[in-house]
């Protein structure tokens, strides 16, 4: 069973790579809100996804992140890639 990327990992990647807007509480809002509602544009989403990818040695194409609206969708996409990669190896 491969290690899974958690919402905490995603939160840290957002904070380190793109910062957090005033009035946004990632601890509570991350599960319920979309990236756009949290103040993140498409580049911030891409930056977050690429960070999670390199931290976990997953080969992810940029296009994976272009249609993601929520943090949960990103987490699912990253973990799915992680499982796929671990099944191959």
């Amino acid at each position, binding site marked *: 069973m491969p290690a899974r990327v958690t919402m905490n990992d995603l939160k840290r990647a957002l904070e380190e790579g793109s*910062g957090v807007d005033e009035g946004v509480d990632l601890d509570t809002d991350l599960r319920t809100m979309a990236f756009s509602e949290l103040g993140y544009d498409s580049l911030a989403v*891409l930056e977050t996804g690429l960070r999670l*990818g390199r931290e976990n040695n997953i080969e992810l194409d940029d296009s994976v992140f272009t249609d993601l609206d929520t943090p949960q969708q990103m987490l699912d996409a990253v973990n799915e890639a992680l499982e796929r990669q671990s099944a191959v190896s």
Partner: protein
Amino acid sequence: MTAHINGIDIISPLGLSREEHWKALLDGCSGLGPTQSFDSARYDNPISGEILHFGPDELPKRLVPATDRMTQMSLVAAAGAFDDSGIDMSQVDPLDVGVMTAATAGGYAFGQKELQNLWSKGPKYVSTHQSYAWFYAVNTGQISIRHGCQGHSGVIVADDAGGLDAIAFAARRLARGNQIMLTGSVDSTMCPWGRVAHASTGHLSKSADAQAAYLPFDERAAGWVNGEGGAHLVLQSHSDGRYAAVLGHGATVDDPRAAPGTGLGQAIRIALDAARLRPGDIQVVFADAAGTREADRAEAAALVEIFGPHSVPVTAPKAATGRMGCGTASLDVAMAVLAIRDQTIPPTLNVEADESLGVNLCGVATQHPITNVLVLARGVGGFNSALIVGT
């Protein structure tokens, strides 16, 4: 091209606000000193004009990891200029508000950090935000986004001269539809990469003495000091009565085979014609003051040719801040306006003017009747620019 200046803010090594900078300058303070923001021991140019106490505390935290230092400073000064103008952005049509800034090199320090990531760790470690954080137009873009400006906007790249050209371009936009223009430039290349890029021109001062490193129009002149900062201005077609207006602008480009500054005199004449003024109507000149003997001679020759020897008072307050790319020229315009407001010529610190140049240089702050000020700027690549502000 009358465009009234209704808002000004300054950020410089002398102060983080318009009045802080202006007071320190008139008090004869210098913002030059040994470089502190990076280890300059391995470089030949140890003195800098750094903004040492800037922290982006007043910016949204979301912007900080995604922006270069010069963009953060530009955003703070732009907000200060809008604030000074008293304009309530909720009461104006965003399509009527434009942003026209100048840039010299884009976000250099951010770019250096990401190039280091690329080189030492690999492409996956380069920040996505690098795609725009380095870019020349980034300050115009970030100011537009933050203040909701949707009118005609752009960026001018003409080295230091761009700091005047952007203001002139903004003034022209007022005649073509925009109601409000945020303009000027705040610039920084304060990092090792920026330092070596400037040093490669051979025109950067090698002096380790902060009070003798940048001495324009002085026999001892041996280069300029790299600074950071600049000014933003708000232009409107009506005046709120506090500041001067942009009256005229002229720009020329030198033949690269000719001596530097050959076209500077022509730029001055074009600006005078545009403002419908004669040389005698100018009370003060803010010089480009390149700080190398050859370039100083060329500028002095242009001034003597148009105004006569030892005539119009000339000043170069940038001797107290260093040259900050096109931020320098925008800062000069802001100071020219304050000089008119307070009827005071700011000083050229530390300089003993070479009398043979024929320039009437002001070494100390001087009370003087001032209606019109000529501001000059030149840039690498042959750019010459002249802008006149007055009442």
